[in-house]
């Protein structure tokens, strides 16, 4: 039994994967609660997809992926801002058009005959391929995001609660929105390396959406989401080891299963009635 539990993590590669998944889980879970309440899930997914051409270009040119992702995100933001100004197109449509175009461009680049093999991992991630530097980056991200969320907590809570009247309260909606978007962008940039372009949003949105069904206060919700994300990461790695499934996809699958379980729990066990 103990062997069965330890077996998947005997190799240093697997240990690094475990650490990476745990660090990204803490970050994604805590940050995800704000993504859910600020209704940024669609934006987060769009951003992740839109920076694919940047990642592929960096990979083809032999540049650091982080740099490519950053450039990709900037291009995407600019393109969305410009497309959003065309009066006949709504903002939603503008985002969809830009993101689909950029994502398509990324796929075309990634699967051209000249592309090196293994570039598909940018799409689906390669948890078991993360380097020491990747883990270090994930640790840095976790410290940064948790620290920023701690400092911004009051602002985020007030703006998310009542955006229309936040300024009258002395809160700063622009600060809260900008800081949150920057944190989300950073989290995607870092997490996309291990989890892949298509699955990174699962860690950012899934555990938070699950925790929302179960917790009633923001801080416990963030803690629960982080714990759920770590559990899903570890569970996904086990699944990947024993079922021989892809790492990132296994983790995403466990996250979705957790969400469905929480929904079922909410439906069968009503919250205690209040006087």
């Amino acid at each position, binding site marked *: 039994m103990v062997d069965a539990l330890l077996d998947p993590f005997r190799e240093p590669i697997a240990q690094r994967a475990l650490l990476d998944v745990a660090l990204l889980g803490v970050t994604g879970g805590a940050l995800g609660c704000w993504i859910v309440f600020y209704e940024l899930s669609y934006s987060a997914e769009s951003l992740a997809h839109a920076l694919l051409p940047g990642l592929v270009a960096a990979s083809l040119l032999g540049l650091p992926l982080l740099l490519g992702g950053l450039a990709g995100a900037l291009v995407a933001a600019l393109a969305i801002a410009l497309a959003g100004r065309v009066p006949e197109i709504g903002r939603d449509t503008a985002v969809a058009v830009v993101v689909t175009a950029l994502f398509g461009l990324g796929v075309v680049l990634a699967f051209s005959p000249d592309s090196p093999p293994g570039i598909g991992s940018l799409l689906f991630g390669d948890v078991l391929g993360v380097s020491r530097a990747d883990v270090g980056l994930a640790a840095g991200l976790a410290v940064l995001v948790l620290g920023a969320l701690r400092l911004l*907590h*009051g602002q985020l*809570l007030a703006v998310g*609660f009542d955006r229309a009247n936040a*300024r*009258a*309260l*002395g809160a*700063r909606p622009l600060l809260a929105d900008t800081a949150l978007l920057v944190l989300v962008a950073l989290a995607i940039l870092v997490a996309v390396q291990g989890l892949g372009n298509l699955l990174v949003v699962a860690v950012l949105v899934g555990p938070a959406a699950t925790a929302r069904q179960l917790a009633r206060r923001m801080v416990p919700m963030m803690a629960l989401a982080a714990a759920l994300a770590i559990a899903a990461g570890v569970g996904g790695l086990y699944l990947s080891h024993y079922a021989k499934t892809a790492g990132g996809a296994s983790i995403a699958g466990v996250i979705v299963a957790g969400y469905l379980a929480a929904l079922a729990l909410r439906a069968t066990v009503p919250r205690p009635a209040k006087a």
Partner: protein
Amino acid sequence: MPPASSDRPPLAEADGLAAGYGAAPVLHGVSFRIGAGDRVAVLGPYGGGKTTLFRVLLGELVPTAGRVSVPARCATVPQTERSRLDYPVSALDVALMGTLARLPWWRRPGRVERREAREALAVVGLETLASESFGELSGGQRQRVLIARALVQDARLLLLDEPFTGVDEPNARRLMALLDRLAGEGRAVMVATHDVEQARMWDLVLCLNGRQIAFGPPAETLSRAVLEATYGGAIVELPGAEGARGILPPHHHHHG
């Protein structure tokens, strides 16, 4: 009799105020003076300019013409959007948001602020529900939590947006008593409302319909002519019908 506030320093004052969002002002010709202890009903149809006036008083909207001065600290008691009822905050969390303006943005409220918020919840009669989820409170209780938040802001002028909408009779009475008490403490309350009957019980009435129709004590302002100008004549013709009851009370016709 002139408004009782005219001999005291005003908490809010407007003179020829106009405000709006585009070329044409939503509201113009607004002049009033509100002092400590005044309870003011702000009457008017939807789109009549009540919300615009509140936004000007809160400093969120700059007047396009005229002058406005709000020397008192001013706070809003808004309606709660239904979509926010599952937001993960307690009544105490909401009351604590009243400390945001005086703390640096990175500071979280400490023991002093928490005690203050609990005291404010006690003033509105909700000390025992401080740790309840805000969204699970009744409509009247939510209004009182938001009033507690305004008290934590140390507001002397409270702007309430339709606070009695969807509130049952006992809670409405409790809310009314609370507003009376706040006015008695030297604060002023401005209540946007549709309820003319209720407006009669207040110190001052401000009638808005794109412009100021009237301002003064209810006995002077709530005439048939003013109400017709405020709400449009058609509504006055249906005093007994559902929905119009609150706009024009039947007995009004005897001396209107």
